[in-house]
């Protein structure tokens, strides 16, 4: 890179990115998707489903908006801020959305859930008390082959209520 101008050639390019609040310098292949680069560097919560932009399981939040990792060339994320599912919570300290998905029984095989939760997080960050129609619209594009969507919608409602209670305390 020179003068903030990205020019990749011959193999690897090092992108500077904030991943889940931490600054990282990641060597990525010029021809690699953000999804593959994140997984190769250990953020395996980002799932590779269709790799064609249809299923939503590779959703990450890039510069404040959910995008599909499989259709984003990794080098274009240079200087960007990324949130993956690992940035939300842990097994011992889950994010309210993660708790709500478990409580509502919204998780079966779990493969679509990181994408679902990141799409939901973006929704609740911008609209803390969404209507059911707004939840369905936000999750449009996150496909689930197990549960049929009812439980996920319920989970987002539960999480919104939990987070509202959290704010009142």
């Amino acid at each position, binding site marked *: 890179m020179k003068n903030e101008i990205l*020019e990749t050639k011959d193999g690897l390019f090092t992108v500077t990115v904030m991943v889940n609040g931490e600054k990282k310098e990641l060597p990525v292949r010029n021809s690699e998707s953000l999804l593959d680069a994140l997984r190769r560097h250990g953020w395996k919560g980002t799932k590779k489903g269709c790799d064609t932009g249809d299923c939503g399981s590779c959703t990450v939040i890039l510069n404040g908006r959910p995008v599909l990792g499989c259709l984003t060339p990794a080098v274009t994320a240079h200087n960007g801020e990324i949130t993956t599912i690992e940035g939300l919570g842990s097994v011992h300290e889950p994010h309210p959305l993660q708790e709500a998905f478990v409580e509502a029984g919204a998780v079966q095989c779990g493969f679509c859930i990181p994408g679902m939760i990141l799409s939901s997080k973006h929704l609740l960050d911008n609209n803390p008390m969404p209507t059911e129609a707004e939840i369905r619209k936000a999750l449009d594009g996150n496909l689930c082959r197990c549960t049929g969507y009812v439980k996920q919608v319920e989970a987002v409602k539960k999480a919104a209520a939990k987070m509202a209670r959290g704010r009142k305390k």
Partner: protein
Amino acid sequence: MPEFIAKPASLKELWKQLPSLPASRRYLAGGTDLVTADNAGAETSECWVDIGDLPELNGVRETSSAVFIGSAVKVSELERSAPVRKWCPVLLAAVPHFASPSLRNMATLGGNAANASPCADGVCALVAEDACVSLALGGKRRRLPLKDLFSGPKRTALKKDELILGFEVPKRPHTGAYLKLGPRARFGISKAAVALAAELSGRRLTRAAVALGSVAPVPLYAARTSEWLAGRTLSAETAAAAASLVMSEVSPITDARSEAAYRREMCGVLLSRALESLAA
């Protein structure tokens, strides 16, 4: 994806860089069409030039007579843009039909036009909005009606390296509708889509523009139907007559998504529903 991705910081830098880049090159904006084509083996350029963040292609501006929408504006930004909300009702109505929320955060109207798919929802809506497209190649600028940009499926009048700067939608009080028939209510490629822009004086259509997606080799401006509608009063009879006229104007094909006869029929149904929605 190609081994070489260049990202100029400004338009000036872009024109300076281009001659030194491999001859086999394409512009990259949101990547939703280009990366998909690449994954499918249909895109084999040696170099992509990332124009997604060029300041000259971003932002929505209002002039005294038009709304200018930069070609790299993300589709999801349109919903939040005050000038688009005020002056582009058809485009606004098309946004929820455009792919999925995450794809709308990536995809751009410029890419939607450059890709020149007959099913492009954003383009179909912009054609009904009577948009012009602004193009640049080095210092040379030109402007043409968006409907004239397309010469066939995935074919445009764009010259090599010519860049879409943005779209101008004339500011005029009008209303509109965008109705799409796909495999499901949302997140699907259309079998047929109808965009209708209308200027109304009471129940009288003083002006109308009808554009259709997925039923011709290009995003189709239905000139005869649009002209016929001007001056008519909204009624069931008008809707029925416009529906049969539009069915004679489209040239759908049978493919993996639908059948020609069904698509033709649905153009009539969607247009008549769009006209009814104005009357309501």
